[in-house]
């Protein structure tokens, strides 16, 4: 009996901390429509700051607490809203997601840079005191946390319902434009809510630190618990959010107490929050479609077929040269780059063309690798079957959230990534606990490709083939349809397209591409394990894909190389390991609004070179001049302009109307 009580109290304590974090998330989301994936990362950084103030610099606890909660956290929140996330709420969900994932990764990198890994402890509040309740000892820290969550609930209620700015906040939820018309200041409201939200994240982090320790990842991932609780409240209702957080805390505590610590069910204990999040998302009511949103993004120019073929051949030649000259270790790196590039190619399809975000793309590669190793059919058939299996899993992840849109789909991939990481990949029927599986190298047409050099060339060939297939698709009717669906799902629906199945198909196809990459990777390495496909690595992958350009095959190729170089860079400069992460994270924040990324620079450089030397070259080489790009390939070249924060879509200018006389409407 007393153990039940003590586990309930433990659950209430963690639940209270989740509730504080979740209410901050709800506050920022409802007022600005930006779902802050980095909410937990903010809490983590603030917990470290608190440690720095109270332990390293030796400030009194009350002063450190005041400085973190009253100055640093709100200041950070205000700054982020003002200069980073402002105006993101009106744009496509994918942009907001990528930017906040950038903040997430950037925060982790920054924390590692400022506070390099070391043993640090934060003592609980009033460490020596506590109470006996019905035979169970309750620490003062637990009581403080539970009381604080009640205080936060009360203060939020008073803020939202009894103050002018709170009324403005609630008005801003419905319609910031209207609020502006009536003399309110939605910008001020947004900044304030981010300041308060970040403080709440900080408070939750500080309260949980004595229990889970100062860990970059554990604290950051706590946000999943907050997401789950916030989802139960529909990202809107604070009372339901509190109820969800408390329920989740107790469930987690009971799972630890009463689920077997051995056997098949043991791993469930670690994924209770992810399971909870997944089920809440699945049970969410149908999302209303938004009408009249910003649409039309500037896509990367489509290369002509001959150009694409030429570059593909060039890439293969480079791979062949590398394959015959490089050392084994370096070839493994090139193969890894090709793997990442293929996974990023799957993101070009999903995110670049389709406008959906997956936060666990590497997990799908892991499914492919697992299938490839388990099937033990090291030939084309086995590889394609592994891709198919990964595709089916991808479709399965999308299926339950068929009725929902962008954000929920992305969050369910996050829950899926954590589930696979902690439960499925670790299970005995998969890689085993921290285990690996052996995989054989592919044999093509009966010839086994044993040398690493040749295998890398085959991998690059697969990349080139997938890239060409993607360009072919983009050029055709399906590609047009994908773009149309990204621009306006509503219009596609009213034109007769069944969006749901189309979306499931898109997700499945993208997962299959990642799965194929995973299968090839398994063959390259010879042994693969769950650690190769950790959910956390999917985030830098997404970010680098965006930084290098998620709308083009070129971007995927560059991004693959970049992601491969990342650990190399980090191990050669261990002191800057965190900084590199931070640069990528914050780089994605800067570039997240422009889906064409850095490959734009490559394209514009190419155009400039063509202008400068192209005509000259063509005169000397009649062969090059002979193959000109076909005229009407369905692509429209438009000078690139970045969507700035808060920018409305460019108002239709009357320009073209004056340029070409508008013809009278011809009646039949």
């Amino acid at each position, binding site marked *: 009996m007393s153990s039940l009580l003590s586990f309930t109290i433990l659950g209430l304590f963690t639940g209270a901390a989740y509730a504080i974090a979740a209410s901050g998330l709800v506050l920022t989301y409802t007022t600005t429509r930006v779902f802050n994936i980095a909410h937990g990362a903010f809490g983590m950084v603030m917990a470290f700051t608190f440690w720095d103030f109270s332990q390293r610099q030796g400030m009194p606890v009350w002063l450190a607490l005041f400085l973190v909660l009253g100055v640093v956290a709100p200041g950070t929140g205000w700054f982020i809203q003002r200069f980073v996330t402002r105006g993101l709420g009106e744009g496509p969900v994918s942009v907001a997601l990528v930017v906040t994932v950038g903040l997430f990764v950037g925060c982790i990198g920054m924390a590692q840079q400022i506070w390099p890994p070391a043993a640090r402890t934060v003592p609980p509040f009033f460490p020596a005191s506590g109470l006996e309740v019905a035979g169970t000892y309750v620490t003062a820290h637990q009581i403080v946390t539970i009381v604080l969550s009640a205080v936060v609930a009360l203060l939020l209620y008073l803020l939202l319902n009894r103050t002018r700015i709170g009324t403005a906040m609630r008005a801003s939820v*419905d*319609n910031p*434009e*209207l609020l502006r*018309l009536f003399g309110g200041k939605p910008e001020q409201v947004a900044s304030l809510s981010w300041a308060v939200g970040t403080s709440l994240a900080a408070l939750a982090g500080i309260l949980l630190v004595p229990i889970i320790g100062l860990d970059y990842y554990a604290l950051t991932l706590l946000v999943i618990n907050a997401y789950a609780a916030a989802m139960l409240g529909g990202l809107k209702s604070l009372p339901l959010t509190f109820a969800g957080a408390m329920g989740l805390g107790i469930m987690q505590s009971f799972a630890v107490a009463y689920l077997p610590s051995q056997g098949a069910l043991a791993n469930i204990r670690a994924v209770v929050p992810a399971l909870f999040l997944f089920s809440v998302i699945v049970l969410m009511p*149908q*999302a*209303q*479609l*938004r*009408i*009249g949103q910003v*649409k*039309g*993004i*500037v*896509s990367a120019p489509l290369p002509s077929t001959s150009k694409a073929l030429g570059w593909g051949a060039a890439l293969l030649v480079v791979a062949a040269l590398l394959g015959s000259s490089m050392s084994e270790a370096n070839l493994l790196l090139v193969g890894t780059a090709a793997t990442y590039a293929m996974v990023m190619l799957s993101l070009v399809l999903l995110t670049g063309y389709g406008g959906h975000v997956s936060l666990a793309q590497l997990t799908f590669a892991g499914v492919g690798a697992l299938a490839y190793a388990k099937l033990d059919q090291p030939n084309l058939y086995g590889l394609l079957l592994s891709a198919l299996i990964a595709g089916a899993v991808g479709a399965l992840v999308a299926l339950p959230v068929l009725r929902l849109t962008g954000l929920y789909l992305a969050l369910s991939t996050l829950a899926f990534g954590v589930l696979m990481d902690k439960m499925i990949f670790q299970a005995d029927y998969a890689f085993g606990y921290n285990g690996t599986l052996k995989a054989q190298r592919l044999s093509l047409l009966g010839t086994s490709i044993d040398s690493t050099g040749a295998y890398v060339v085959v991998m690059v060939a697969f990349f080139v083939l997938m890239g060409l297939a993607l360009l072919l698709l983009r050029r*055709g*009717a*399906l590609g*047009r*349809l994908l*773009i*149309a669906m*990204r*621009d*306006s799902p*509503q*219009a*596609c*629906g*009213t*034109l*007769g*397209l*069944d*969006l749901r199945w189309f979306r499931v198909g898109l997700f499945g196809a993208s997962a299959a591409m990642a799965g194929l990459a995973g299968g090839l990777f398994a063959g390259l390495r010879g042994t693969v394990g769950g650690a190769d496909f950790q959910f956390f690595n999917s985030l830098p992958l997404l970010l680098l894909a965006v930084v290098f350009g998620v709308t083009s095959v070129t971007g995927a190729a560059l991004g693959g190389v970049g992601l491969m170089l990342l650990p190399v860079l980090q191990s050669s400069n261990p002191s800057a390991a965190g900084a590199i992460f931070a640069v990528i994270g914050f780089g994605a924040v800067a570039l997240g609004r422009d889906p064409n990324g850095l490959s734009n620079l490559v394209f514009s450089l190419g155009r400039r070179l063509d202008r400068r030397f192209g005509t000259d070259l063509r005169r000397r080489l009649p062969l090059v001049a002979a193959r000109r790009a076909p005229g009407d390939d*369905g692509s*429209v070249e*438009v000078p690139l302009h970045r969507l700035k924060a808060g920018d409305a*879509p*460019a108002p*239709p*200018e*009357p320009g*073209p*109307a004056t340029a*070409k*006389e*508008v*013809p*009278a*409407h*011809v*009646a*039949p």
Partner: protein
Amino acid sequence: MSLLEVDGVVVQFGGVIAVNGAGFTAEAGRVTGLIGPNGAGKTTCFNVISGLQKPTRGTIRFDGRTVTGAPVHRRSKRGMGRTFQRLEAFGSLSVRDNVRVAFDIDRGITGLLRPAAANVDALLERVGISAYAPDRADAIPTGTARLLELARCLAADPKLLLLDEPSSGLDESETDAFGDLLRGLAAEGRGILMVEHDMDLVMTVCDEIHVLDFGEVIASGAPADIRANPRVQEAYLGYSDPADETRHDLPPVDLTAEFPAVQEPGR
């Protein structure tokens, strides 16, 4: 039997009743106007008819079948096409590709493999925007984009067209041509239901008009009857003054911004 029958539709957003038991019909081969002051529930009605919004109560019958619970795309397959008050053109695609997509969707996924027989340019010519064919759809004037949405609908050869303020953004001569286009489309046997603020256009083009106010149909009839109806005058002008003949042709003054919160619960 009418092509479209809207019966007792109620839409409630929290405490706000946007549509309150509205019922009206639209016939094949005729242009039907749906008018009313801002916030009267016109666009919400359109959303209910086309399936973007679930009604709290009420039924929609289309072409002899109840479609109240049918998803958006199925209604479209049965012959319903609509345009949007807030533009929903595919901004990243050219005007021509916008219409191509509509043809592609109409043919279905299996049809994508067959070569297109569709004459995209003829359709652009018909609505009068061929000059814009290669332009990106987010760079064309509003009025043109509305015509583009109409062209897109026509790709599926719909039986019923739901047009949400199709003429806003068009100048006077363009509006006249647009009126002719509408008459031509109706003459082909299509039903047209149109939300419109341009009273001149409504009065000259429509065969029948339904007037919505506070989510209820307050009058239905031929243009001449509607013009003379005191309740309609009151709804539009806030007072009824039969002596003030000149005022009634004016479009309502847009004093209050429309409440998108009411129009779009998803935001």
